[in-house]
C-alpha cells in the first residue's frame, strides 16, 4: 500500500468516526431551531428558563452519534438515557408541581372564588383539540396527549404524553413550551378581537384579606375535592397542594424554600435539557409533529377564547362585572398569561391593575388542566 493510499484510507476512517459522516439536513434544521430558541430566550426574554435548556438540548440531541456508542437519549445505557428516564416515566413533572405549589399564592383565588370557573372554562381548548386530533386519525391516547397542550402547562403535557403517547413526547413537549413562550404573541390579538374597549376598561374590586387559616385549610380540602372527583390527578394535584401546604403552614419554611428554589431549578434544568435532547431529527421531523404544532396552536387559541367568552357570560349573569381579559389567564401558563392580561389591560388604562385578579383564574387553570389530564389518563388507559 502506498503512502497516499494509506493516508486516504485513514482519512476516510477518521471521517467516518466524526459526526459529519451521519449529519443530515434534518439535523442541521433542528440545530438551527435550537439556536432560534436560545436567541428568543436571550434577546426577547421568552421563557428563558425553559428555552435556554431546551434550545441547547435540541442542539445536543441532533449531533449524530457514532454507531456502537451509547450517547443519545434513545441509546440504552447512555448517560442522557438515565437523565431522560425522569421525562419518559413522568418523574419530573410532579416535582415541578411541588415547586409551583410552594411558589403559588392562592390568596387572590380565595378572595374571589367565582374566578375559579374561568380556569375551568379555558379547558374547553383541551377537549375540543382532543376531538380535532381524533378526526385527524390520531389514536384516542395520542389525541388526549395532544389536547392537553391547550392546558398551557408544560409539566402536565409532558406527564400525560409520557403516560399515553411516549413516542410523541418530544413534539408535544416542544409544542407546549413553545406556545407557552409565545403567550405574549398568541393571546393579545384574540383578547382584543373578543372584547370591546369598554370591557377592557372594567375595573375590579380589590381582593379581600385572606386569613392564614384559610390558606392552610385550602390545599388540603381542595386536594380532597379534586382527586375524589378525578383520581387520575392525584400525582400532579397532590404534589401541587403539598408544596402549597409547605408554604402556607409556615412551620416548614426550609422545605418550602428548597421546593421553590433549588429543587424546581434542578428539575427544570434536567427536564428542559432532556426534552430538547429527545428531538433528534429522525424522531422529531415527522408529519405528526407538524400536526401536533398546528393542533397545539388551535388548542391555545380556543382555550384563550373559552376563558374570555365565559367571563363575558358571567357578566351577563352576575351584577358585579368582571374584566373579561382575565378570562384569558385561565389557560394557566403561570404567570405569563396573567402578565399578558395586565399588559393588554394597561394599554387601555395605565392605572388599571389586573395582574392580581388574573392570578386567580391563572392558578385555577393549573388545577383545571391537571384535572383534565387526570380524566384523560384514567379514561384512555383502560
Amino acid at each position: 500500500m502506498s503512502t497516499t493510499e494509506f493516508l486516504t484510507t485513514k482519512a476516510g476512517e477518521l471521517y467516518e468516526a466524526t459526526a459529519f459522516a451521519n449529519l443530515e439536513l434534518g439535523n442541521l434544521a433542528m440545530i438551527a431551531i435550537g439556536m432560534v430558541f436560545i436567541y428568543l430566550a436571550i434577546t426577547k426574554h421568552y421563557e428563558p428558563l425553559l428555552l435556554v435548556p431546551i434550545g441547547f438540548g435540541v442542539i445536543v440531541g441532533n449531533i449524530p452519534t457514532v454507531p456502537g456508542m451509547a450517547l443519545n437519549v434513545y441509546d440504552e445505557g447512555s448517560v442522557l438515557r438515565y437523565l431522560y428516564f425522569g421525562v419518559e416515566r413522568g418523574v419530573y413533572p410532579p416535582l415541578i408541581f411541588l415547586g409551583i405549589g410552594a411558589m403559588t399564592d392562592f390568596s387572590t383565588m380565595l378572595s374571589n372564588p367565582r374566578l375559579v370557573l374561568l380556569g375551568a372554562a379555558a379547558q374547553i381548548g383541551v377537549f375540543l383539540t382532543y376531538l380535532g386530533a381524533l378526526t385527524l386519525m390520531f389514536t384516542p391516547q395520542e389525541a388526549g396527549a395532544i389536547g392537553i397542550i391547550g392546558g398551557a402547562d408544560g409539566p402536565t403535557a409532558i406527564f400525560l404524553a409520557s403516560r399515553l403517547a411516549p413516542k410523541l413526547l418530544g413534539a408535544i413537549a416542544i409544542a407546549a413550551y413553545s406556545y407557552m413562550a409565545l403567550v405574549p404573541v398568541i393571546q393579545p390579538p384574540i383578547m382584543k378581537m373578543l372584547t370591546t374597549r369598554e370591557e377592557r376598561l372594567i375595573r375590579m374590586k380589590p381582593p379581600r384579606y385572606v386569613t392564614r387559616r384559610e390558606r392552610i385549610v385550602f390545599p388540603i380540602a381542595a386536594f380532597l375535592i379534586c382527586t375524589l372527583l378525578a383520581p387520575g390527578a392525584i400525582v400532579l394535584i397532590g404534589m401541587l397542594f403539598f408544596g402549597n401546604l409547605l408554604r402556607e403552614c409556615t412551620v416548614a419554611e426550609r422545605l418550602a424554600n428548597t421546593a421553590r428554589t433549588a429543587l424546581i431549578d434542578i428539575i427544570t434544568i434536567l427536564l428542559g435539557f432532556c426534552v430538547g435532547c429527545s428531538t433528534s431529527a429522525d424522531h422529531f421531523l415527522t408529519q405528526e409533529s407538524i400536526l401536533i404544532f398546528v393542533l397545539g396552536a388551535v388548542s391555545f387559541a380556543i382555550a384563550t377564547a373559552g376563558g374570555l367568552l365565559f367571563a363575558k357570560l358571567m357578566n351577563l349573569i352576575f351584577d358585579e362585572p368582571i374584566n373579561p381579559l382575565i378570562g384569558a389567564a385561565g389557560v394557566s401558563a403561570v404567570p405569563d398569561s396573567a402578565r399578558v392580561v395586565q399588559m393588554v389591560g394597561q394599554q387601555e388604562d395605565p392605572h388599571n391593575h389586573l395582574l392580581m385578579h388574573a392570578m386567580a383564574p391563572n392558578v385555577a387553570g393549573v388545577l383545571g388542566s391537571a384535572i383534565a389530564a387526570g380524566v384523560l389518563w384514567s379514561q384512555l388507559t383502560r
Partner: protein
Amino acid sequence: MAASPLHDLPTAGPPLAAFDLKPLFEDTGITLALMGLLVVFAALLLVRVFIGLLPRMLGAVEQYVPEKAPAAAPEPAAEEPGLPDELLAVIAAVVAHTVRKPHRIVRTRDLTPDDKSWSMEGRLQHHASHRIQTRGQGRS
C-alpha cells in the same frame, strides 16, 4: 437489556391530510370530551363553593379556637423622636402631590403586616418585575 418502549413504538404517523369524523361518535369521542369537561367544571365548581363557605366555616371555628393574633405591631415611628426632617418633607411632598387640596398630616407610622394594600403593591411589583419587554425597551 430490554429495549426501550420508545424503540418499540412505530414512528410512522397518520397521513397529513387524513380526516374522518367517525372516531367522534365512538366511546372515546364526543362522549369522553363532554364527560371530561363536566368533571373539570364540577371539581372547580365544588372548589368554588368550598372557598365561598370557608370564611363562614372558619368564623364558626374561630369562636371556639381563636386564631393567634399576629405579633404586636411596633410603635408608630412618627411618635418616636428622631424621624429625620428630610423624610417628613418627602412624605409631605408626596401627599401634597397626590391629594392636591388643602390638607394636614396629623400622624405617620411604620407599616405593619396588616397594611394589606402595601403588601399587595409589593406582590404586584414582584409579579411585574419580569414583565414582557418589546424590542428597544430597557431591562426592568
